[in-house]
């Protein structure tokens, strides 16, 4: 596929997302748009975590920390750009905020990954858990960005510029980047690390370097999701450190396991399913989390490998094949 055709394809997808946003708002109202936006954010997060926990077989339980880094770095960037670029070109400003948020999260990913991924075993889980908490507590005690009160989204503070096409566009980018990486020679190397590290090394793969690479890409995509989340124009009120607790990391993990460890389309479905089911359960109020937990237990008993296992959902397989038609 030529570069031009790919760009046209991407533009077409964005146009479709704009249409979906307007259509949904007109027919189902603002609340439905908001749920769709959450689906998109979740999909990004799940696709990112799946690269580490699914494809590479490592275990991170602190991805909320990278999301927080992306969210706050993006917000600060927008804040600084507000009088200049933000005023004249709000879209360009949001793009810069996303890039900065993603990049800083990626750097944090390298910083966390290098010491912990060298060792085998559970170190990564412990270090990422600690990292997530450190980030959250640091933000809480830093008043200029709102501290534990949070930082409002909207006029005068973080610009609410991330509309549905932005969020879904971000999810599309996440799927393309992570998907192409996973189904390439690099992804094969990551799979080999998951299957057998000693054999992977003997096949010439510098396992530590590759694990850090996967972890950094994952953190970067998570940072992008965080930045978009911070600029949520579909009804986001504020960002606050409470949103980046361990619960969030566990939620992302649930999405990945629900969809099937190792499956990208599964991660997207998992992200969507978690967003939608938590919304549907809202009317049960206090019982919401109990019902949610029960649903998860039932799912794990009925389908321990997750919705798709480690396979991908291939839309082409659902359509009548061209060969058969010919």
């Amino acid at each position: 596929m030529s570069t031009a055709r790919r760009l046209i394809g991407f533009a077409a997808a964005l146009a479709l997302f704009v249409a979906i946003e307007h259509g949904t708002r007109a027919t189902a109202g603002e609340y439905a748009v908001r749920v769709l936006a959450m689906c998109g954010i979740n999909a990004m997060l799940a696709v990112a975590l799946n690269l580490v926990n699914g494809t590479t077989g490592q275990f991170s339980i602190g991805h909320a920390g990278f999301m927080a880094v992306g969210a706050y770095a993006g917000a600060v960037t927008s804040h600084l750009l507000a009088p200049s670029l933000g005023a004249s070109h709000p879209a360009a400003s949001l793009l810069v905020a996303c890039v900065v948020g993603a990049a800083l999260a990626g750097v944090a990913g390298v910083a966390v990954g290098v010491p912990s991924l060298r060792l085998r075993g559970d170190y990564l889980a412990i270090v990422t858990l600690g990292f997530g908490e450190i980030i959250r507590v640091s933000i809480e005690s830093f008043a200029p960005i709102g501290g534990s009160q949070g930082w409002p989204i909207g006029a005068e503070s973080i610009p609410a510029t991330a509309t549905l096409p932005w969020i879904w566009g971000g999810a599309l980018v996440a799927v393309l980047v992570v998907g192409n990486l996973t189904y390439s020679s690099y992804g094969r190397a990551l799979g080999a690390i998951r299957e057998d590290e000693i054999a992977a090394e003997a096949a010439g793969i510098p396992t530590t370097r590759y694990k850090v690479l996967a972890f950094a890409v994952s953190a970067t995509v998570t940072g992008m999701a965080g930045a978009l989340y911070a600029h949520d124009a579909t009804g986001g009120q504020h960002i606050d450190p409470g949103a980046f607790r361990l619960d969030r990391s566990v939620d992302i993990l649930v999405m990945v396991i629900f969809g099937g460890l190792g499956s990208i389309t599964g991660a997207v479905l998992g992200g969507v399913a978690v967003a939608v089911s938590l919304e549907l359960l809202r009317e049960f109020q206090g019982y919401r989390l109990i019902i949610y937990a029960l649903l998860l237990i039932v799912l794990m008993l009925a389908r321990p490998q997750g919705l798709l296992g480690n396979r991908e959902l291939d839309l082409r397989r659902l359509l009548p094949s061209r060969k058969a038609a010919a």
Partner: protein
Amino acid sequence: MSAALSLSGVEMVFGGLRAVGGVSFDVPERSIFGLIGPNGAGKTTVFNCVTGVYAPTKGAITFRGQRIDGLPAWKIADLGIARTFQNIRLFGQMSVLENVLVASHRVTRASLLDAIVRTRRYADDEAAMRRKALDLLKFFELDDNADQRASSLPYGDQRRLEIARALMLDPKVLLLDEPAAGLNSAEAKVLEQQIRTLRDRFDLTVVLVEHNMQVVMAACEEIHVMDRGETIAHGAPAAVQKDPKVLEAYLGAGHDNAIAATHTDASATADVLLDVKDLRVNYGGIQALKGISLEVRRGELVALIGANGAGKTTTLKAIARTLAVKSGSVRFAGRDLAGVEAHELVTLGVAMAPEGRAIFPNLTVRENLEMGAYTVDDPKVVATRLDEAVTLFPRLGERMKQLGGTLSGGEQQMLSIARALMSGPALLMLDEPSLGIAPVLVDQIFEAIDRIRRKGTTILLVEQNTRRALAAAQRAYVLVTGEVALSGTAEALANDPRVQGAYLGEGVHLD
């Protein structure tokens, strides 16, 4: 002649154990070099030091003049030393083709960015690697299985796949750790020729660790013999073979010549203990077992023989209920095993020592043995059986506190058999008990098997070493591609020319 690989004073100490105690040798460029010795001699540990799994505690390892000891494993692979593993380490969930492709990763020129945006360069590279990988698979006759999951291949094919993966690295030196394990004599002969062909075609230096003496003697130009970490002999195959120290420590006195037949003994009864009828198993779309029927009478030793991939292991697994059976019945002591869980079998009196050992790597030898006696309540019985295990395999007694995963291949095999005996089973199923076992010990293991049977345990034995199996068994079944092609008394089968036919893969002529 220059040395491709040279070791000088290499020592590897684990805790208090000197696994390798100052070994020195030079491997000449383009030679096929044998490294042999009894179980636990330190051969695999030497490989691990050369390939960077361990950094030797002392000594120097040089590859074409460059010091490599202590370098990370991937770097050593990168320099051109490839290996296979004694305890097969494939990427089980990945396809056969992907397994080979993984090893091409270091030679690709495409960057991460190329891969993510799928540039032309990436596509060309990938296509070239695929062609190369398929060529290698073709050489090992695995190209038809390219898309199959690696873990679903039969044992012998998994070994060949490991060699193909190692060759994908374009190595200068290839280290093979027991490539002929689990192959019958015809297959081993093919392998031996393949090793020579590979050396010529790829300009390789090959270091071969192997317990199959036919292969070692035919393939190697020079042999280094170790025992308990020390060098005991070195030289040309003919000289090494006659060396008294090698004979005593490794080959044993009556090596393969005088296998005494025990099948004259008639302690078997007419009482059918295990009755298998029309057993069918499918792997994906492939029929692995196409209706196997067999019976084992109480007190008997029955052998199951056949080529690699004939379905022997699958039959044992189906009986042990560790894989899904499509149809057919298995009755044990009159009881239909349909619906019985795999773990309940031990309580009923069935124990299995599986192929590839499957010991608990993070438990000690003692704990592994105790796990085998999980269903035994009486601590006195457990203690007695522990004693018996140690008498059977004294090496295990020396290593009670060592972690199972760090035992040598042969030691793990001993542990696997000993653990199966700990439950005091009525029926013992042994899958290739001689796999990875040094020739001296093979004699001992078969003697032990015979003793176990005489004490009243019924045995179903899968074994590549046909002569041994038929000498030990009363009756045998010959499997060919998932069906029983021949059966009868071991004595009759041992003299039946068709058995060799089945073994050579030429099929049996049933008229």
